[in-house]
């Protein structure tokens, strides 16, 4: 008869919970405003999801709206444009995720090895400056650089790779778009993303390096066997969080760099929603697409976190 014991254990746990709650009552009270904020701004708006199942007309009352069930979802998944857009979104955010991580960690590792403080500061400043330029300006810079009379084409002509008059219209070739997008994102955010890893590296106990040195590790080996494991937990938590954003490949760069010619590769879910939802005043469709995004993001986040848990790594919850 294990029941009574279990019951006892449970009530004991409850008592423990309340005692702890009482002991930390100041903390609990302090968190109340944030809970209220969370409910008002994060949970109440979920009510708006009902719009996805209606033929929503603004200004009409809730009860006056026509309910049409899953029509908008059917339209979304039946439309081959949406599938193309989904592909682009996933492709671009994967590119972003992978290169974002690899380049930022590499740069952080390299910077960590730099002994000349002045040089290190200059590199850091220069690399994170683009983060503060708005995408509108950044897109203009990229467009100008890639235009037929831009720097890159001039360089290619100068080096003899292409002839004058045959300049490449980089943004006009659909297949190039993902690469351009990935490179621009890396350029813009590499310095910024590095900061958190550099911060994590400062927490590594210097004695570990000393010990490794005594054991005969060179710089490269210290990097692999001390620094990298030292920031592993940070990397994994960030990775999990970013996987949750996999369907958020961003809006501005695609919108600003996209044009009629590369639309097959540049249009992502957000732009699709803008074009066929908001611009056409079809708010229900936008909500339906948004819902789809949230649900998929949630599943991805959950899976990634679970995987980390299984592997016994640091995780989100």
């Amino acid at each position, binding site marked *: 008869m294990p029941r009574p014991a279990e019951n006892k254990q449970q009530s004991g746990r409850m008592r423990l919970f309340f005692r702890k709650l009482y002991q930390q*009552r*100041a903390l609990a*009270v302090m968190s*109340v*405003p944030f809970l*209220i904020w969370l409910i008002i701004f994060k949970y109440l708006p979920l009510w708006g999801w009902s719009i996805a199942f209606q033929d929503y*007309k*603004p*200004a009409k009352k809730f009860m006056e709206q026509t309910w049409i069930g899953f029509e908008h979802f059917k339209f979304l998944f039946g439309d081959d444009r949406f599938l193309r857009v989904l592909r682009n979104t996933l492709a671009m955010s994967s590119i972003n995720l992978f290169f974002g991580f690899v380049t930022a960690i590499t740069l952080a590792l390299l910077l960590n090895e730099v002994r000349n403080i002045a040089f290190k500061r200059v590199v850091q400043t220069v690399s994170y400056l683009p983060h503060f330029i708005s995408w509108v300006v950044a897109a*203009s810079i990229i*467009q*100008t650089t*890639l*235009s*037929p*009379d831009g720097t890159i084409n001039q360089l290619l002509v100068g080096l003899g790779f292409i002839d004058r*008059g045959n*300049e490449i*219209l980089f*943004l*006009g070739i659909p297949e190039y778009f993902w690469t351009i997008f990935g490179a621009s994102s890396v350029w813009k955010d590499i310095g910024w993303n590095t900061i958190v890893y550099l911060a994590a590296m400062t927490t590594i106990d210097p004695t570990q390096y000393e010990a490794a040195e005594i054991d005969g590790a060179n710089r490269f080996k210290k990097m692999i066997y001390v620094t990298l494991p030292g920031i592993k937990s940070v990397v994994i938590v960030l990775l999990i969080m970013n996987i949750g954003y996999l369907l958020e490949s961003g809006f501005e760069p695609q919108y*600003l760099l996209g*044009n*009629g*010619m590369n*639309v*097959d590769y540049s249009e992502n879910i957000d732009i699709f929603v803008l*074009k*066929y939802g*908001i*611009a*056409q*005043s*079809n708010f229900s469709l936008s909500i339906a697409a948004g819902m789809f995004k949230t649900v998929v993001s949630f599943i991805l986040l959950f899976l990634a976190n679970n995987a980390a848990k299984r592997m016994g790594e640091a995780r989100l919850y």
Partner: protein
Amino acid sequence: MRKTKRFWLLSLTAILSLSMITACSGTNNKAKETTGKTEPSSSAAATATAEAKQDKVTFKIFNGVAGSKDGNTNQTTIGKILEDQTGVNFKLEFVVGDLNTKIGTMIAANDYPDVLIPDAAIEEVLNAGAFIPLDDLIEEHGPNIKRVYGKSLNQMRSKDGKIYFLPIAAQVNDFIPEPEAGAGFWVQRRVLEEAGYPKIKTLDQYIELIKNYRDKHKDENLTGMVSLTHDWRFFATSNPPMHLMGYPNDGNVTVDTNTWEAKTYAGADSTKRWLKALNDLNAAGLFDKASFVDNYDQYIAKLTSHKVLGFFDYRWQVDNALNVLKDAARKDPSLDGYNYFPLPVTFDEGTPDAYLDPPGGLVTNRGIGITVSAKDPVRIIQFFDNMLTEENQTLMSWGIKGETYEVNEEGRYYRTQEQIDKIDEPFRESFGFKYFSWNWPMYNATSTLADGNAKNVASQPEVFQMTLTDKDKFILDKYGVQTYSQLFAEPVPRPYFPAWGFTKEQNSPEQLWEASKDELTKKYFPKLVLTTPDKFDSVWEEYMKEFGKLDTAGYEKWTTEQVKAKVELANQ
């Protein structure tokens, strides 16, 4: 004990502060409701004492077109005069950011400014029932509104037969075309000069002209033609076939004035012919490929770079670039060759062009309306009516006699050089020309005043002549004309015009057709222009296959119905 007390105190404070927040918002709402309720009686009082000096009131206007700084109309000279006449002042707010978001917020909250100029979002505002019907107000307080909009009142009616807003401007008295064409094929003046100022009538001649110049100046790294394609401005590249066939700007269709049939041209031979011409230009290295990736700012920068020989566009889109070039040439006449000159180009020699907007109907998908939140609609409509008197229309465009304009013995209005120099941007702002130039109920720019003077200052030939430089006069003289628009064919009246101004319902098949067509053309036009000439036909086939999937017949049928309805109303 003390500790528990503190705990309860803490939670009490939290609860109290929360209830205060909710309580505050509660009272706010109540206050609004009560004022809302008392207003009708106060407005009744206001009208009762209308004869006597009226109290000063301030109404709020939201303008969906970004333009000026926010402010009160009575802080300007014109606004002050209007306030003295009516006791009404307007606080103007202009859109910042996204129009639809702003209007959407208003609709969701059911809280509007007194007067609303929703621009492109007008259909949503109407659907939300945000405008009050104006019929009775106009009947009672609007003798001038009836005079100005009288002919078109029927065109302004909504489906339920009521008038909900006043369109932005109406044609009054005689029609005088603007002295400068609204669109055209532009070419650098040095190109014309070198060719000896030939008469250019057809697209082939135009291209020949550019080609010859470029061939003679091979080492200058010149661009033959550029085209604007960025985002919604893509029409600058897709509209030319319509103009080349000799039709005015009706947007997506051309309208036959005999049968009033509307036909789309995006998949027609005319479009094929235009794109083929661009394709040949590109093959000859005369077309700027970057046209299809550049944004608007880059396009404007290219036009001011002196390197571009020609382009097609509407004047209002390239005004900035043209003004920069003009100012530079005024300071240094040797730069005059980089100014652009508009040419009336069509496909065939015999086709008369239609680049000047014809006298037509009313743009009925833009306008100004009084909202359900308005405190005192009567005072507002009285203000609008007062604005539309001859004197005030003169005041709004010409200003004050002796200060911003003069009158000669024959009664013609003109400005002295001194006055022209004085009226710069800051002056336009402080005087009120800027606030009162657009989006109010007014005579449109091609109207005349009752005494025969042009309503629009720039359209008055006397004023226009003064703005010309010696070089301008020289080149106009070469073509034997006094104004640029005299080079173009006289516009033929079209009572429905313009077809792009027809109101389309949100999420309707018409709107969907336009969106899909835009997407298709944006994708295929660049391909068609940039492909090698031998593949042009096969890409065109591919485009036609996609284009065939659209319900073009339905769109044409809908537009034709709209045209015919407008024509019928105009003939009543």
